[in-house]
C-alpha cells in the first residue's frame, strides 16, 4: 500500500472457454452431429489442414493444423464440414454480449471461444465472482446451447491454466493466495506462453512440473533461457500482472485474413494481398478515427506451420501508404521458409485515437496532405461502391467467396 492510500486489490479474472468452439457451434445448428467424430476443414483446398475437430476425433489422434488427408486416414468415420467463420464470429458476438452485462474489461480471441473477463470490484453490483461465472455459463448454455468451461483466478495466467486442467467441461476456482500451490504439481506443458523449443529444453532439464521450474531462481534460468527467464520465473509462481484488454481501450487490434485459393509462394501475389489487407485496415482505422502503431503479418504454411513477424512505428498511422510499408517490412521478416503459404493474416494493433492537432509547419507536409486527399477520395468511393472499386499501388482485388475468410474482418 502506498502512503496516498492506494491499495492493490486481489483481482478476479474469469476465463470462459468453449472447447472446440467451431464444433460446438456446428452442433448447435445441427443436433445430429452430437456424439459423432467431426472434422472441420476447408474441403475445396488442394492441401487442406484441420481447422477444428470434435473431442471424439481428437481422441482418435486428429489435431488442429494436421493435413486433412492424414486426419481422415486416422479417423475414417468422421463427418467433414467446411469452416463457417462468419457463423463462429456471430456466436462469439452473442457470447460477448452476455459478458458485457458484467464487466467492460473483456478480452477475446478470434472465433475461438476464449474470453477473459476481469470482474474485480463488480461484487456490489453482481455478487461474488464465482456466482458470475456460474450464471454466465448457465445463461450461455440456455440461450446459445453451448457449454463453456469457466475458471476463476487472480490473473489471466492462473485462470487459463485452470481451464486447460478441466478441459473439455467443468469449472475451477483458484483461491487467491494459492496460485503457486495450485500450479506446483501440474505438468509443465499446461503453462501458457511456452514455445516448442522452450518445452523441449525444459524436458531436457527434467523440469516436468511447474513446481520444479518454480524452485529455480531467475539467475539459474537465465543461463538456458536468456531474456525469457523473468517470464518463466514469474509464470511458474502464478504471477501475471497483464491486464485484461478491452476493445475500447485499443488493446485489441484490427485484423484481416486472406486464404489463398491455391497455396502459393509467389512473392508478387503475396505482396499484393498484404497491400490489399493493409488498405482495408487503413480504411477501417480512418473510419474509427484511430491510428495503429504496429502491423503484424501471420503466415500459415501448407504444412500447418506458421510464422508471425511485426513492424512498428513511433507515431501511429492510418495511411494506406505507411501501413503498406510496415506490412511489407513485416512480410519480408516473415518470409523465412520456402514452403507454400496457405493464408496470410494482417493485424494492426497498439491502436490509439488519431490526434486532432495540426502541424506547426504545414508547408513541409504538402506531400502528406496530397496523399490524405487521395485517401479521402478513395474512402468516399469505397463507402459508396465497395472496397474493390478502386486500388492503389500493389493492391489487388480480393474476392470474398463462401467458406473462405478472405478479407473478412476478424474483430
Amino acid at each position: 500500500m502506498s502512503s496516498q492510500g492506494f491499495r492493490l486489490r486481489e483481482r478476479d479474472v474469469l476465463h470462459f472457454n468453449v472447447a472446440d468452439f467451431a464444433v460446438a457451434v456446428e452442433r448447435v445448428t445441427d443436433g445430429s452431429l452430437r456424439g459423432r467424430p467431426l472434422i472441420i476443414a476447408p474441403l475445396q483446398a488442394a492441401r487442406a489442414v484441420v481447422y477444428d475437430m470434435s473431442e471424439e476425433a481428437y481422441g482418435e489422434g486428429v489435431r488442429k493444423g494436421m493435413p486433412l488427408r492424414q486426419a481422415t486416414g486416422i479417423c475414417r468415420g468422421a463427418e467433414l464440414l467446411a469452416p463457417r467463420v462468419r457463423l463462429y464470429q456471430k456466436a462469439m458476438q452473442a457470447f460477448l454480449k452476455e459478458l458485457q452485462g458484467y464487466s467492460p474489461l473483456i478480452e477475446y480471441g478470434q472465433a475461438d471461444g476464449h474470453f477473459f473477463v476481469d470482474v474485480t470490484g463488480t461484487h456490489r453490483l453482481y455478487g461474488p465472482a464465482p456466482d458470475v461465472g456460474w450464471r454466465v455459463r448457465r445463461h450461455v448454455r440456455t440461450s446459445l446451447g453451448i457449454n463453456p468451461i469457466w475458471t476463476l483466478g487472480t490473473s489471466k495466467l492462473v485462470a487459463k491454466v485452470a481451464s486447460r486442467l478441466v478441459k473439455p467441461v467443468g469449472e475451477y476456482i483458484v483461491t487467491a493466495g494459492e496460485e503457486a500451490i495450485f500450479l506446483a504439481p501440474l505438468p509443465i506443458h499446461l503453462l501458457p506462453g511456452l514455445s516448442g523449443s522452450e518445452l523441449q529444453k525444459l524436458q531436457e532439464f527434467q523440469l516436468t512440473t511447474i513446481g520444479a521450474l518454480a524452485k529455480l531462481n531467475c539467475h539459474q534460468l537465465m543461463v538456458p533461457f536468456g531474456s525469457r527467464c523473468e517470464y518463466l520465473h514469474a509464470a511458474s509462481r502464478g504471477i501475471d500482472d497483464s491486464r485484461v484488454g478491452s476493445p475500447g481501450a485499443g488493446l485489441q487490434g484490427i485484423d484481416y485474413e486472406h486464404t489463398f485459393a491455391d497455396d502459393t509462394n509467389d512473392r508478387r501475389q503475396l505482396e499484393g494481398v498484404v497491400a490489399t489487407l493493409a488498405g482495408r485496415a487503413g480504411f477501417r482505422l480512418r473510419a474509427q478515427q484511430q491510428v495503429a502503431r504496429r502491423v503484424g503479418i501471420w503466415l500459415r504454411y501448407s504444412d500447418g506451420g506458421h510464422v508471425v513477424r511485426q513492424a512498428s512505428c513511433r507515431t501511429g498511422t492510418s495511411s494506406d501508404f505507411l501501413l503498406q510499408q510496415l506490412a511489407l517490412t513485416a512480410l519480408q521478416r516473415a518470409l523465412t521458409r520456402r514452403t507454400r503459404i496457405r493464408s496470410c493474416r494482417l493485424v494492426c494493433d497498439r491502436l490509439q485515437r488519431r490526434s486532432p492537432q495540426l502541424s506547426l509547419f504545414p508547408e513541409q507536409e504538402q506531400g502528406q496532405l496530397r496523399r490524405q486527399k487521395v485517401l479521402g477520395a478513395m474512402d468516399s468511393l469505397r463507402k459508396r461502391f465497395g472496397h474493390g472499386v478502386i486500388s492503389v499501388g500493389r493492391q489487388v482485388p480480393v474476392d470474398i467467396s463462401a467458406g473462405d475468410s478472405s478479407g473478412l474482418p476478424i474483430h
Partner: protein
Amino acid sequence: MVSENNGPCPASVELSFVSEATGVARSCPVYVGTCGYSYTEWVDSGFYPEGTKSAEMLGLYGRCFSVVELNYTWYQMARADALARMVEKAPAHLLFAAKLTRTMTHERDDNWREQLHLYRQGIEPLKNRLLAVLLQLPPDFDRSIANRNYLAALLDGLHDLPVAVEFRHCSWATDSVFAELERRRVTLVAIDAPSLPGLFPSLDVVTNPALFYVRFHGRNKEGWRSGNMQKKFNYDYSEEELRAWCDSYLQPMAACADRGILFFNNHVRAMAPRNGRKLAVILAGLRQGER
C-alpha cells in the same frame, strides 16, 4: 469488528431447558455463523479490516464465529487438497457445514453417483469438524414422483453423513415428508425468507434430534425473484425481528434437539455477520435470563 476479543467459542450459546415430557433438564448448544466467509464486499463494508486478503479471511472470521457454511463447494466439486489446506489454517474451534455440489442438486445429471463419490472424497478433510452436509434443492424441485425417487436415492448415498435438506418448493411441506426425514434422521432446514407464494414456508419442525439447522435469507420480497443475488439477499434484520424469531422458532426447536446451527445468508454489505453478531448477543441474553 473482527478485532474484538470474543472468547474461545464466539457466537455460540448453550441454552438450557427442562423437558416437558420427562421433567429432566437438558442443554442445547447453538452456534451462529454465516453462509460463506470470503467476500471482498465485507472488506469494503468494514467487517474485515481494510486490505484483508482472501487467505486471511477465515482466521479473522473465526474471531467472531464458531461455525461457517462453506458455499464454494456448491459452485465446484469439493477437493480434498484445497479443503485440507483450509482446515489446517482455520482456527481450532471453527466447525463447518458444507453445501452439496450443484451437479447433484440444481444441475442434476445421469452421473450424479460419480459426483457423489467425488464429493465424499473431497470433504474427507472436514470429517471431525463437519456438522452437516447441506443439500439445498432448487425452487423448481417439486414433490413429483421422479424427484422423490431421486431424493431418496441421494439420501441413501449420503446415509453415513450428517445431512440437512433445504427445500424451496412448498409442495414438500407435508407431514409424510417430515416423518420420512425423521425416520432417516435427516435434518429439515428451517428457513427465514420472504413469505411468497410457492416458497417453502418458515417452520419450526425438528426432524433430527441430533441437529437443527436454520438459514436466514432475509425478507426482501422485491429482490427475491430478481435473479440478482445482490438484490435477493439485501436485507438487514432488526433486533425486534430477531427477538421475535427466537421466541417463535428458536425456543421450540432448541427444546427438542441436541445442537443447533443458525446461518445468515444476507451477505450483501456484510449484513450477514452483523446480524449474526446481533443474534448472538440476543442468545447470550436468553442464556443469562435462564439463570
